[in-house]
């Protein structure tokens, strides 16, 4: 079972792996690095850096457009997860694939049940699961119903399921701690070290530096679809890793100083939100935005941004704390009241919230405004006025579309976002929530939307900007608040001294500063 190390030959080597999706998105370009047998090897990177794509390629879920994977020095072609399994590669996905109504044993042996004639041999299945459990020192009750177990226990089952195939040599874990509490994380790490002792090579995907430090022997960092660093853990500091993950600061000359801000517009005090999804939870958020100010929220995805946006747009009610808006309480306003008072919202999820794919460009651009006297005559819509207005929008925002009657689904992401932005900006908001306003859209469209956001601020609107793109945050924000674990851990006035390196440790929860 023990992985054999043949001399200095690495167990696994990625050689110039590139991946370009058929829609033109480049997911990886020229990734090369090696993984030594028996190591716990961490792969670090921001969202979109390419970690998941790389693991999907290794597990046979995606095919690289260029490059090769070498296993024990031999080039292998991993056409499917079945091939990956035959090569001894197993994967534990971030989202479990367990069936809650089945027992532990049934789940682990799903698809490879021992049979007796036409029937499943339950006794044998039970025996096999117990043997597996003993071999890897992972305690499970084979007869328990999976649905009744804790998330940590389910993860153990998921790991056993991955190990249940014969001849597993490498185990990939995709952000395994995302769903765990700190003590569960410690237990998982103990188990992973046991697996390492049993001879397995472990690939650990994470963007939590603390965990990488605690667990890994070697770390490879990915940034912007390329390898930005590769080093044994002993020879690299946390700050260095953070810099490799976040990237060296690109000069961001758009400094927006000198503009006078108005009075405090939005004031958030001790905001709390209990959410079933831990990534949305808020545990005490404090910040304020003045009129004409852009406050950028930096943070690793899932640090509470979604919860914050949902409270400030009226989608959810906070469980604690206060929000005031121009001095009036706004803690429990509904969306319609927020909007009536001048809130506009560019949502992160363009097609689930921002618009409706099956409705036309016109309808998407004017939804919400359709009851204005300009577009409605009693119960009837003024079709001509709507056509004329959408013509102006298409012109002004440079929307490329087959026509105003075309469904939103016929537009590219950037053009759809322009339609949504046009709708939200048209209300001349005094408070704008721009949530990932340029994610996944082309540079020209992104620049256009960014310039619109700046114009809006110049006209006196308070703007909350949430973005996973640090360069965008640094270019647009007057102040940057870093969110981690559902609270603001630092607030920095934007200036030349604010760099991704400086933000990185806050974003990863290594440091926190009172402000």
């Amino acid at each position, binding site marked *: 079972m023990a992985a054999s190390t043949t001399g200095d030959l690495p167990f696994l080597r990625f050689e110039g792996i590139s991946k370009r999706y058929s829609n033109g998105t480049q997911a990886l370009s020229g990734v090369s690095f090696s993984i030594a047998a028996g190591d716990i090897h961490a792969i670090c990177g921001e969202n979109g850096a390419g970690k998941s794509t790389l693991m999907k390629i290794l597990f046979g879920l995606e095919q690289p457009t260029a490059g090769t994977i070498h296993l024990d020095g031999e080039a292998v072609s991993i056409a499917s997860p079945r091939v990956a399994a035959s090569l001894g590669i197993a994967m534990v996905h971030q989202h479990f694939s367990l069936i809650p109504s089945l027992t532990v044993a049934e789940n682990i042996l799903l698809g490879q049940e021992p049979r007796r004639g036409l029937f499943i041999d339950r006794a044998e299945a039970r025996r096999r699961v117990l043997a597996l459990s003993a071999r890897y020192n992972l305690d499970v009750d084979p007869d328990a119903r999976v649905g009744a177990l804790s998330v940590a226990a389910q993860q153990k089952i998921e790991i056993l399921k991955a190990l249940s195939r014969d001849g597993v040599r490498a185990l990939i874990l995709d952000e395994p701690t995302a769903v765990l509490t700190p003590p569960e994380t410690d237990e998982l790490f103990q188990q992973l070290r046991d697996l390492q002792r049993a001879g397995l090579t472990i690939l650990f995907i994470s963007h939590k530096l603390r965990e990488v430090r605690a667990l890994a022997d070697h770390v490879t960092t990915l940034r912007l679809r390329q390898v930005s660093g590769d080093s044994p853990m002993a020879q690299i500091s946390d700050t260095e890793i953070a810099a490799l993950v976040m990237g060296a600061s690109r000069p961001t000359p758009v400094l927006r100083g000198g503009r006078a801000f108005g009075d405090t517009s939005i004031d958030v005090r001790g905001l709390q939100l209990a959410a079933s999804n831990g990534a949305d939870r808020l545990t005490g958020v404090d910040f304020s935005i003045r009129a004409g100010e852009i406050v950028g929220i930096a943070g690793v995805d899932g640090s509470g941004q979604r919860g914050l946006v949902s409270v400030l747009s009226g989608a959810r009610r906070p469980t604690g704390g206060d929000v005031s808006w121009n001095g009036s309480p706004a803690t429990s306003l509904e969306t319609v009241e927020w909007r009536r008072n001048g809130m506009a919202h560019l949502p992160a999820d363009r097609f*689930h919230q921002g618009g409706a*794919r099956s409705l036309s460009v016109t309808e998407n651009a004017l939804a919400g405004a359709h009851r204005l006297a300009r577009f409605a005559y009693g119960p009837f819509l003024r079709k001509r006025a709507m056509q004329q207005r959408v013509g102006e929008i298409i012109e002004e925002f440079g929307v490329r579309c087959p026509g105003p009657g075309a469904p939103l689904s016929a537009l590219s992401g950037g053009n759809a976002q322009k339609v949504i932005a046009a709708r939200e900006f048209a209300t001349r908001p005094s408070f704008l929530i721009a949530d990932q306003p340029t994610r996944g859209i082309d540079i020209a469209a992104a620049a256009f939307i960014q310039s619109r956001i700046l114009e809006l601020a110049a006209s006196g609107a308070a703007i909350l900007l949430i973005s996973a793109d640090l360069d965008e945050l640094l270019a647009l924000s007057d102040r940057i608040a870093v969110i981690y674990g559902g609270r603001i851990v630092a607030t920095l006035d934007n200036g030349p001294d604010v760099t991704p390196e400086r933000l990185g440790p806050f974003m990863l929860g290594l440091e926190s500063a009172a402000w």
Partner: protein
Amino acid sequence: MVIREALAPFILTVLLLIGILALVLVPIAMTQPDPWGMIDTFLLGPFRNPRHTGNIVEMATPAMLCGLAVALMFRTGMFNLGVEGAFFLGGLATVATALLVPLPALALVPVALLVGTLIGSSVCIVPGYLRSRYEVSELVSSLMLNFAALFIGLYVVNYVLRDPSAGAMVSYKIPLEARLPRLIAGTRIHLGTLFAVVACIAGSIYLFRTTWGFESRIVGANPGFATHLGLPIRRIMLRAQIIGGAIAAFAGGIEMLGLYQRFSWQSLPGNGWTGVVVAILARDHPLLLIPAALFLSYLQVGGDLVARNHDVPSEVVGLIQALILIFVTASAITRNPRLLAWVAGRRTENEA
């Protein structure tokens, strides 16, 4: 070319329907001593006699209205099957009003239809309210409520309206002045048909030209978008179910006053289900409901003629309807870009 492009989905649907007809009719015809005669009766029989052609129209009348009720709710993202019960109860309440309430002759029809609409629509409104207030699945509650409506209705017929001198469990005769006038001599086409056509046109205006209709379509297209806009989703959902229920109940009243002498339904008449089929075939477009309803009624009349003249049960029509439902809802076929391109007479880009 442009027209052909725009009509491609429609033409594709028509081609599908022809294919399905052939798929069912040809094998059945082969079992007959006179295969051509049977196909001839099925396809052309309905047009050989004005009375049969009239049957198509009178059958299409409730189908259009029920289809409209379903389409307006579908468009809002609701799947309320109370249309069936609302149709039944609307018919009964209309007849009951005409029988029990002393009214001047001129007011009789409008008042009876109004009361029928109010009472009948409750079968849709109650599930609609439960959905918008307590998130009860309107599919389940409306399905159950249909049977409550049926048995309450049968109770009322039996104990209140029943004419003891008639042999069966039927009501007293509907007064002559409450009957809807016939429009075309030699057929039973009545004023209700006109109402139905006007309702479909009005439904189209409602959906595409009014603020309420627009809001319905936003909720139906993407509830997350409606939430984001701050639209009152519950109110919009409830509104759609009230309007849909009212139309279905009105259809029941019209059916009774237009075609019947007594209230004689002993079970759910099935027009609501036909409405679902019609709405699906018309892709929830109110104007397309008219041809869709006429087409399905044509099949039914053809099937009935075949059943009468040949040794084929009229359930064949049910088989055709079922196949239509399966194929027309199979978006893999009807939305297939290659097929659409082929029908539109254009080459697909990736083929080039």
